């Protein structure tokens, strides 16, 4: 069966099916979602979409296609996901991806396992089969209960599509593709429960995406269905279960990937003449290095968040040896510990971050400092004025101003520039002993590199000393709490949220700065105590038409 061709031929049936699903009776969950005025809407990120499909249909159902790029707002994709829509071309992409998935679900390799039935004696038109299919997968995909009437509507439309296409399974594929193209799947709707706070399924999604970066599993859905998540004890039981799972690592990886902007390493390129050791493979490994290091310290060893800035332990890969100029015995990943006194210590000296916030051919204390101020200290640095001249800074062959520090100092003669550079540059200059791809160096064009500076009123001599200051700085740990809260809720805090955030921040030291405990506290507080999050603005909220197709 050439399902792809049939699906294309049956596009009108698919559209009809989508239309049919949208033309619903009163009181359906779908209508409740579309019309939920107080609920926040967050688009699934690409990784969440892929995880959802793997969880529901199995890892061998491939997700092929190009996704609309995720949108980072105020440093977090998690916040940006509340402020995105789907463009017309983006919807086409989602639809193509959905068709590809649906085609695989009903193909000969998966049909028996995932469909498991067909028209026959006692079910001549296959209505029972289709109904069971949607009853099995629909709630998992929509992350909520589906009323019998809603399943019946999907079933009717699917059977009609099958008749139009002349193929029962092609009809199922069309119905499934419509479901996967629906905003109910593509977006996370948070709905109010009876008490005005999140309903059970919204709570399930919130803790599942926070802790696993994945949709709720069957046990969590069951807990939502029976109301277990409505009680502090029931919610805590599920939170603890999720955190005890190996999949908690996925959740923490997703958080730090977003927090530290590590996805940007996927598209990072460098001047290969100046940095021949760097390539796309190395960039990917640098991202993985930071994530593995974070997981090792904060999840596996339940460590202190602040130690991220002073730990000498780092995940190391054979292919990263040339960047770090260390021998690597393992042929893939291993944990490496730099000796005391080594210039490499802590997150600030991870080559991935150093490379990410540099120019293609040189370092940038300003970019590095700005990124660290914004991500790790929650300090917003404004963009430079449009008419600023970078001529001196960019003159890397300047005969007298040989070091970046010297050129930046000259640049700061412009008082307008100096205002922001005074905030960003001291931190960035501390990292100047690492070049544009994060390789250690002690000189620049023959001149010794001065990596000293002042942070929060304390002098430091180099990146290692700065890392110690970060370790002990309350703003650093408080920023982590705020960012984790924003990540969990998908929005920037409103004035009414501040007391709760302040409480989390003041509790963080009592928790030993353990990130796992912080995530648990956030999972409980933002799930149990908060009402559904309001989107940033109505204009930025996804619009959903009556056909079920979101538009920009």
């Amino acid at each position: 069966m050439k399902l792809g061709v049939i699906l294309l031929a049956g596009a009108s049936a698919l559209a009809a099916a989508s239309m049919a699903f949208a033309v619903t009776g009163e009181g359906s969950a779908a209508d409740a979602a579309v019309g939920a005025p107080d609920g926040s809407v967050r688009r699934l990120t690409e990784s969440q979409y892929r995880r959802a499909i793997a969880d529901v249909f199995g890892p061998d159902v491939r997700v092929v296609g190009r996704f609309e790029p995720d949108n980072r707002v105020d440093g977090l994709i998690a916040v940006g996901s509340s402020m995105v829509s789907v463009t017309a071309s983006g919807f086409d992409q989602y639809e193509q991806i959905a068709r590809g998935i649906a085609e695989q679900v009903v193909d000969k390799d998966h049909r028996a396992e995932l469909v498991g039935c067909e028209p026959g004696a006692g079910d001549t038109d296959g209505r029972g089969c289709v109904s069971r299919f949607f009853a099995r997968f629909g709630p998992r995909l929509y992350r909520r209960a589906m009323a019998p009437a809603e399943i019946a509507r999907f079933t009717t439309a699917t059977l009609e599509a099958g008749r139009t296409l002349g193929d029962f399974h092609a009809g199922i594929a069309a119905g499934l593709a419509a479901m996967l193209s629906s905003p109910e799947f593509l977006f996370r709707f948070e709905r109010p429960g009876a008490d005005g706070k999140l309903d059970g399924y919204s709570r399930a999604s919130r803790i599942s995406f926070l802790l696993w970066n994945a949709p709720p599993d069957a046990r969590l859905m069951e807990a939502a269905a029976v109301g277990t998540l409505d009680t502090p004890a029931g919610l805590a039981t599920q939170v603890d279960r999720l955190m005890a799972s190996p999949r908690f690592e996925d959740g923490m990886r997703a958080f730090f990937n977003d927090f530290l902007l590590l996805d940007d390493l996927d598209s990072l390129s460098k001047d290969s003449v100046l940095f021949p050791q760097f390539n796309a493979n190395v960039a990917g490994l640098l991202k993985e290095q930071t994530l593995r290091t974070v997981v090792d310290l904060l999840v596996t060893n339940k460590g202190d968040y602040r130690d991220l800035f002073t730990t000498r332990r780092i995940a190391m890969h054979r292919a990263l040896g040339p960047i770090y100029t260390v021998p690597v015995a393992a042929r893939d990943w291993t944990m490496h510990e730099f000796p005391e006194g080594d210039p490499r210590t802590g997150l600030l000296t991870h080559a991935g971050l150093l490379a990410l916030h540099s120019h293609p051919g040189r370092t940038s204390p300003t970019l590095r400092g700005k990124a660290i101020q914004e991500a790790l200290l929650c300090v917003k640095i404004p963009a430079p004025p449009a008419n600023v001249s970078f001529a001196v800074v960019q003159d890397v062959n300047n005969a007298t101003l040989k070091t970046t520090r010297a050129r930046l100092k000259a640049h700061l003669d412009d008082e307008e520039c100096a205002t922001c550079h005074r905030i960003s540059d001291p931190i960035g200059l501390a990292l100047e002993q690492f070049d544009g791809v994060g390789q250690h160096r002690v000189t620049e064009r023959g001149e010794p590199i001065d990596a000293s500076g002042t942070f929060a009123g304390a002098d430091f001599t180099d990146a290692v000393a700065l890392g110690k200051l970060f370790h002990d700085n309350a703003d650093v740990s408080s920023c982590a709490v705020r960012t984790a809260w924003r990540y969990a809720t998908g929005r920037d805090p409103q004035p009414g949220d501040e007391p709760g955030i302040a409480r989390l921040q003041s509790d963080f030291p009592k928790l030993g700065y353990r990130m796992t405990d912080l995530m648990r506290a956030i999972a409980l507080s933002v799930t149990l105590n908060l009402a559904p999050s309001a989107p940033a603005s109505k204009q930025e909220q996804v619009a959903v038409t009556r056909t079920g197709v979101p538009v920009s």
Partner: protein
Amino acid sequence: MNKLPRCGTAFRLLSTLPLIAALPVLIAADTPTGGAPGVRSFVLTNIFFSGPKEAGTCTQLADGGVESFYNSLPPAERAAFADPAKRRDLERLMIKRLGFKATKMPPGAENDTDAIKRAASAAGFPAGKGRAAFANKRISYDSCTDPLDFMQLAEGYRLYDGKIAEGANLDGKQKKGDFHSASGQPGIDNQVWKALGCTKAFRDVGERENAREVLMSAAAPTLIEVRGIDDPRNDPDVTVNVMAASDALARDGRGGPLQWSSFATDPDPALRTTTKGRIVDGVLTTDPVDMRLNYKEQIIDAPRDLRSARIRLTFNSDGSVDGRIDGYYTLASLYDSIEQMSQAGASASGISCPGVYKAIHALADGYPDRKTGRKTAISSALGFVGVPAFAVPPERIAAAGKGAGL
């Protein structure tokens, strides 16, 4: 802007040498940035017959086997093959007329002499002839497998006729036939350059600048590790390990060798040599020692056996190294690398296997056989270029593979 405190010389020294203070606590940690203190390792990206292009030498290059065959043809036939475009036809004629043979190696027969002989006989080889060739994929009988049977192809082979060569005075004597170094040092023993220095293929790669552009034996490069360095410019006592790597050389974004890569060392003790050395003004020299260097390139797998070999290595300011290994190259291992080139490789490279065979045996000047008195090795100077690397012993690789990793 903030007035950043400027640190003085003392700070810069500490910054430049951050690892010195760390030495006492290294036991509990892994290698620091830059590698273990006092240890520098290099992967050799090319090892080549080192010889200068002395002005006025080799005005006529040595004929390759094909050229020699061509010159042996009657004028009418030579005219028929004079066009360079006819070279493939000329090679086919040589194969046919000289009776070269080749057949596929039967599966599993690579190390079975009897099976090879049976297959050769079945393919119509002359009685008793037929040797494994072309990376054991073929059985061949030609001027490379059996040079003594085709000595007519040594006609037109020419020896290097210069007076200057790179190398060392290996025997401590000044003899007739010895070279001078470019700086005028007499008694340079480098008879292999005399044997090969007018053959274009060796002559071109013998130039250091050309050698830098080419990775040779990249699948199994050689590592030089210098340990016990207290002063990288002058140290009277260092230990030098010469080892084979089990890992291949990787290229960087410029197409050159990737620096600071980690290489597992080959566990074969025959491929590891340790000797003592000293560094004077940034130049390392070692005591003589026998060593075996891996040489794997395309279809060639012919380890170089060197006797009484000594290393002269210059540490360059960019972290790379240049140098030479001077010693006696055993004839058996030297010709093995030529033979493995196969007739096809020799013809493509313009090399006369019989010419090389004859020359190196005639000029052999070291390690006489106790029974026959024939020299079994030839003095040589193998140039090398290398980049910084890390040598990782096999036990550390094994430990990492047993759960030390993530």
